[in-house]
């Protein structure tokens, strides 16, 4: 007998301990259960809906604390509020959407999936990203995409200081101003295939009112990470 339900499983964190919620969500990797979850009264608790590995949708009705939806696989996690440090850290696949703003290190070390921030993200957004796609409707803070290896970061607003410092092969698109570029990060030509790429990412993120041709592209000058003896003094 299938236990799959069409209803919404509501978990009240004012009543249910966080570990009990996360355990139930983890169990979905091994056994069938509700496919649509609503978490109410999150009150900024840390580590909500971490480590999911199932095709489910989790809606968080309020503000989430640190490391929300960390290590996410397959699941869609939507936060109807703001998120703290380390949102969707090391995400593998699936989708994480925050309707408010995200604190530092959003999407850090992410390997896949899509992270959408409808407000602003702050410092170190996409730090060490390894394949994740990140779309930010607002702006990102300093040291975003630091040591970014692969994946795409789309910023509809502005970027802070030292964008893409020590970047590898991630592609960065910023529509507004960039306060400063980090070491070995340069502006590159926005060609047709890049406009198509940005348009596709904006579409996936559900952002319709932004012109994909209005972005600038940034990436690696490839002078730092491929070791050259002339750069020895830079280390």
């Amino acid at each position, binding site marked *: 007998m299938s236990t799959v339900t069409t209803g919404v499983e509501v978990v009240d964190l004012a009543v249910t301990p966080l570990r009990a919620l996360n355990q139930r969500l983890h169990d979905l990797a091994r056994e069938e259960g509700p496919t649509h979850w609503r978490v109410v009264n999150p*009150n*900024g608790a*840390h580590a909500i809906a971490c480590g999911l590995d199932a095709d489910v949708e989790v809606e968080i009705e*309020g*503000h989430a*604390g*640190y490391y929300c939806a960390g290590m996410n696989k397959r699941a869609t996690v939507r936060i109807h*509020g*703001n998120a*703290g*440090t380390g949102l969707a850290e090391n995400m593998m696949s699936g989708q994480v959407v925050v309707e408010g*703003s995200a*604190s*530092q290190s959003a999407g850090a070390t992410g390997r896949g999936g899509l992270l959408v921030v409808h*407000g*602003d993200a*702050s*410092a170190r957004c996409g730090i060490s990203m390894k394949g994740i796609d990140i779309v930010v409707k607002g702006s990102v*803070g*300093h040291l975003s995409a630091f040591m970014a290896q692969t994946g795409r970061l789309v910023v509809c607003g502005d970027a*802070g200081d030292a964008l893409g410092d020590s970047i590898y092969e991630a592609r960065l698109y910023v529509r507004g101003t960039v306060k400063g570029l980090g070491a070995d990060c340069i502006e590159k030509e926005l060609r047709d295939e890049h406009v198509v790429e940005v348009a596709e990412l904006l579409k996936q993120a559900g952002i319709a009112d932004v012109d994909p041709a209005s972005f600038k592209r940034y990436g690696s000058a490839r002078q730092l990470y491929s070791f050259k003896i002339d750069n020895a003094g830079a280390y």
Partner: protein
Amino acid sequence: MCGIVGLFAKSTEIEERLGAHLGAMLVQMSDRGPDSAGVAVYRDPAPTGWCKLALYSRDPREDWATVAADLRSVFGGCEEPDVRASHAVVVVEAAADDAARWVHDERPDLRTMSAGRSIEIYKEVGLPTDFAVEFRLHDLYGSHGLGHTRMATESKVTTEGSHPFSTGLDLCVVHNGSLSNHNRLRASLRREGIEFRTENDTEVAAGYLAWRLREGATLQEALEGCLSDLDGFYTFLCGTQEGFAVLRDPIACKPAVLAETDDWVAMASEWRAIAVLPGASEARMWEPEPGVVYVWERETDRAAVAA
């Protein structure tokens, strides 16, 4: 880890309930600092020629009426003490330094937690929820206030080692982070005549700011000096009689969120502490940039002094 909160009132509604709001913010930061909690509230400036001291006693049955009577006999005037748990606020007809020195010399069993005209510091070991009830934060109105929940790293869990720290008149600091050059800096500040009473790193930051302000720096300049003279990581929230200021170290590894509405300016380590304020969902919110000083000050006091 530690949690910081700050609230600057821009409306009388917020002023009247400042302590209640500050307490609610502090409770949200319990997970960040369960060791001790404290607040500094700025309110009811003492009249010209008078000062305000916040005193602490280890003795739960401290006879505060006698302390006030002694102060009255020495200085001529002392209002009835306002007692909150282990603390009492006394308003004395004296310069703040003179009154604090009398307490230091004649009542070494007491500690002066704050001195000035408006500042009142209350701090104690234990959970923020207990602290808020024991110190009746709900009836503390005021123009602005700071709070801290502590997870101890650099020194012991004691009332004296709790934040906020004050080493200057009407000046206080709460801190999230830790400083690594505090021993050497403490030694050099002692040579400048700044007094320290604990081994705590944050007290050194408070002492550094007191020294720079004494030497004529503005709050902005004093905080900018931290960027070159303090080694370590920090988010500071610094309170003065006029307002408060926020500074994060140049790397900004310790969290900070700022938010502003027509009624208030708030600062906290995490958004959840601001979310409890009225109108928070409509507030303009951002995270302060590294190495940038943010200051909110009330113009009225300065204007009054200038006039």
